């Protein structure tokens, strides 16, 4: 069986630990001084062991949904597959460079939408000429100009849905061997959702693999035939979407 299917992503016992700098419990100057004297690590830097030993293989032409409750490590897993977060243990193997499309992936908020589109295209490795050619299509697909000329306004003025649509439009402007989508389809309105699901199907047809993280079980049911359920950083179930979602729904109820 394994010989007939071509793998595009292999995740081998992956662990991801990331550091969070935040306001710690002891933020007073005296506490800072005490830390300096005693040499204890700052309480403001905490380690989060977000993915704990996930193993999976994704194949060409597959669309895989990932479900799990908030904070279960889904987004971190995608970031690690994209090579954006280093693995603490284990290894991820991919064909080509996977592209991650995330809802909280800030491009540059103070810069206009069309400039962000150029920037995104260049970052995906397009040439300058290709990027310029792609921008009108991106703006048209995202539909942000449907209510006036929003393409030339800074992205911070966009609503969450508009920004997510633009990000999805940028990432899907180029065929990817592996496209990772993090909640991006959930924020758009119904019309955009239908359009983007259509685009996901196109991307799959061009021999790519799509991995979709979403809390919208309907959009996973519509686009993915295989689903993975992650809980507390561990893989809980991996199988056909109907069965996994049924188990997940009875768990989260």
């Amino acid at each position: 069986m394994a010989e007939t299917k071509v793998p595009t992503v292999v995740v081998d016992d992956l662990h991801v630990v990331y550091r969070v700098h935040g306001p710690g419990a002891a933020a007073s100057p005296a506490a800072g001084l005490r830390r300096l004297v005693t040499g204890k690590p700052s309480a403001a830097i905490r380690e989060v062991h977000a993915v704990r030993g996930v193993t999976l293989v994704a194949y060409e032409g597959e669309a895989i949904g990932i479900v799990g409750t908030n904070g279960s490590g889904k987004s971190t897993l995608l970031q690690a597959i994209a090579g954006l977060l280093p693995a603490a243990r284990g290894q991820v193997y991919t064909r080509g460079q996977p592209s991650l499309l995330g809802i909280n992936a800030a491009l540059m908020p103070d810069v206009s939408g069309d400039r962000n589109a150029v920037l995104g295209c260049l970052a995906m490795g397009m040439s300058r000429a290709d990027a310029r050619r792609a921008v009108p299509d991106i703006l048209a697909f995202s539909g942000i100009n449907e209510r006036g000329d929003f393409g030339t306004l800074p992205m911070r003025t966009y609503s969450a849905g508009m920004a997510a649509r633009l990000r999805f439009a940028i990432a899907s402007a180029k065929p990817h061997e592996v496209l990772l989508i993090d909640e991006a389809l959930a924020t758009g309105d119904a019309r955009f959702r239908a359009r983007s699901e259509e685009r996901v199907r196109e991307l799959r047809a061009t021999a790519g693999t799509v991995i979709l993280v979403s809390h919208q079980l309907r959009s996973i049911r519509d686009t993915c035939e295989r689903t993975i359920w992650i809980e507390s950083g561990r893989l809980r179930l991996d199988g056909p979407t109907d069965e996994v979602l049924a188990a997940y729904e009875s768990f989260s109820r």
Partner: protein
Amino acid sequence: MRETAVAPEPGDLHDLATRFGLRPAGVRPRLTDYARQVWEYRHFTTSHANAKTISTLGGTRLGQLWQVLTPLANAAVYYLIFGIVLGTRGDVGNFLAYLCTGVFVFAFTQSVVQQATQAVSGNLGLIRSLRFPRACLPLSVVLTQVKALAGAMIVLIGIIRLTGEPPRVGWLLALPALALQCVFSAGLAMVMARLGAALPDLKQVVPFITRAWMYGSGVLYATSAFDAHLPPGLAAAAHANPMLVYIELVRGALLTGVPLASPGWQLWLLAAGWALVAGVGGLVYFWHGERSYGRG
């Protein structure tokens, strides 16, 4: 429950991945490949730098005009304090032009160092969503400052003309000097970007370091002060200071009758040497940490 997936056996996965030519994610490329990637992403770097300039000055009414107004205001303040109030002119005839050259040339590297400290830590969103060689970020900082430097140089030429210097072909010698300074600053930017990514406290300290560096670089006073006030060993060290070297080269190119800190050939040699050491060293140092950026 694994009908669609082939149950993976631990240990077999490495074989499976290599058999189908999959590559490990997030592995650092070889240095030569990395340098080539950085070059291939040059359009990304320039467009990131442009976007950054637009977004920092976009909120102001005068916009890009500040590229010229900022150095002008800087020069006015320093001239007032050091030229008129304190009188540090020494034996320099055209002290206003002398001072402005120092201030503008130093300000370029100073801003690069300051902003590069946050080039990685301030762009985590971009780093965590897009895959590109991270060295593009400190290099983009250098490009934004090259623009500011161009503005400053226009102001400087104006000041030099107004203070009675005739236009000369020799002015063009400032260009290779500034080019070497750019390479030096780019190397420094990559070092600071990696340090700043690991040490968030650094950005609080950097302004003091750069200010101390400025006071030691003969920006605000005539460089003859080194030999007059320092013991010989320290004076020799002061003459090797890369910032002093670049400032003196630009002064030598733009101003006539200015006493230079060291002979010209020595300055050019030092300028090229510093650019080489910092440029190559900075790239190697930054490349070495490539996998760690984005972890937080």
